[in-house]
């Protein structure tokens, strides 16, 4: 597969084979310090705050010998003068070989890709997609479980608004995962996503109580439940503690259970889990660099 010139906008655009090739390339990037992109420029356009995504893209580009330009605050960009997004992209494409964009509006990355002759990578468009996060989630699971096929995966917390959950569930549907959706009633997986899984004959279960299923899981993907998602604070207070993980809940789980979290965490994973072999969320964040190195190299058509 040739990824040269390809845009990375949504996990839904990728076949199973393409996903596997990206993960394979990321493995080759581990520890690599070759200036494969030394003549290339990455433009990072962050219309919304980000630390991990932006810095890991900048690190990825730097590790491959490339240069980075861009902004991390929309108030310093032409957006504050009222310039449209397509116009901004048409200008920036003349300054760079590849663009990474994070923007609050859903679909903005797709618009950017349509306005640009250089590849565009979506660093997060509102509540819609964050494909490089999904790739690094998959890469982490593959690395720690030594496989992607046939795993029992639990998704915990805010499944209604959690874009990382929707995307990862979609991606894992290529690999025959059995899925457990663990959430309060008001934050269940959207029905359209469940219909899609059903159409792909993916076995899934919806439960409210983590303890009923935790011993079955190979992987647990935890997300934060945000108070602002609950119009009534009483409802929030009723559920918030049911979805907090601490070491005491892990008695009897599979020895090789791995816990992931897209971060930042607030209180949903207790610090007492960090030093256990179950916790892989910091390794997960570090994996963002080889995965993003792989994506940059692939879309710029460089031979690895």
């Amino acid at each position, binding site marked *: 597969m040739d990824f040269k010139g390809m845009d990375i906008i949504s996990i839904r655009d990728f076949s199973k084979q393409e996903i596997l090739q990206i993960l394979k390339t990321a493995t080759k990037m581990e520890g690599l310090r070759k200036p494969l992109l030394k003549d290339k420029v990455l433009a990072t356009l962050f219309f919304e705050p980000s630390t991990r995504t932006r810095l890991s893209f900048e690190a990825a580009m730097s590790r491959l010998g490339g240069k980075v330009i861009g902004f991390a605050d929309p108030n310093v960009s032409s957006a504050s003068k009222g310039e449209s*997004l*397509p116009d901004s992209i048409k200008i920036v494409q003349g300054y760079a070989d590849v663009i990474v964009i994070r923007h609050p509006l859903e*679909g903005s990355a*797709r*618009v950017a890709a349509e306005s640009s002759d250089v590849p565009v990578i979506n660093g997060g*468009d509102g509540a819609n997609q964050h494909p490089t996060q999904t790739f690094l989630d998959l890469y982490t699971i593959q690395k720690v479980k030594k496989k992607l096929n046939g795993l029992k995966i639990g998704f915990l917390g805010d499944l209604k608004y959690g874009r990382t959950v929707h995307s990862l569930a979609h991606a894992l549907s290529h690999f025959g995962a059995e899925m457990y959706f663990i959430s309060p009633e008001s934050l269940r997986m959207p029905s359209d996503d469940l219909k899609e899984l059903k159409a792909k004959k993916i076995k899934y279960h919806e439960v409210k109580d983590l303890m009923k299923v935790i011993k079955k899981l190979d992987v647990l993907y935890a997300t934060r439940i945000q108070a602002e998602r609950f119009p009534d604070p009483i409802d929030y207070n009723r559920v918030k503690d049911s979805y907090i993980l601490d070491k005491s809940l892990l008695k009897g789980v599979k020895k090789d259970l791995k816990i992931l979290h897209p971060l930042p965490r607030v209180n949903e994973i207790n610090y007492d889990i960090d030093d256990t072999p179950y916790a892989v969320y910091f390794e997960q964040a570090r994996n963002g660099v080889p995965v993003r190195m792989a994506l940059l190299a692939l879309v710029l058509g460089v031979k690895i």
Partner: protein
Amino acid sequence: MKELRVSAIKDGTVIDHIPSDVTFKVVRVLHLSKMEKTVMVAQNLKSKKMRTKGIVKVSGKELTEDEANKIALLAPSATVNIIKNYNVSKKMDLKVPELIKGIMKCSNPKCVTNNDSVPTVFTLKSTKPVKVQCRYCERYMQAADLKIL
């Protein structure tokens, strides 16, 4: 018994079996209020096929395939007949296009199409009911719930 009749037209297009509540949406989508020729619109007519229906008759205009496809979005069970010399010369098949551009507004207020100068594009996901997906924000929507631009 006096009965309301919708007159026959000599040449033009008859759109029949429109769900009553959609009749004026059809008029809007086809920009018929700007027509110079005669346009007849009837709503809440009794129907054997449906409880009530709407009919739109446009003199001197043959609907294009594009226009027929727009109607397919709003009223997939409608019938479109081209009339020549008072006779039906052609029955148009209504088919919702796979790609629907610029006709409907995305219902997601955070979609880029509602906040920047970007025309909407939807892909057809199912026909019964007509369900579409916004190309940009990737949300699924029922076509009947969407505002026509």
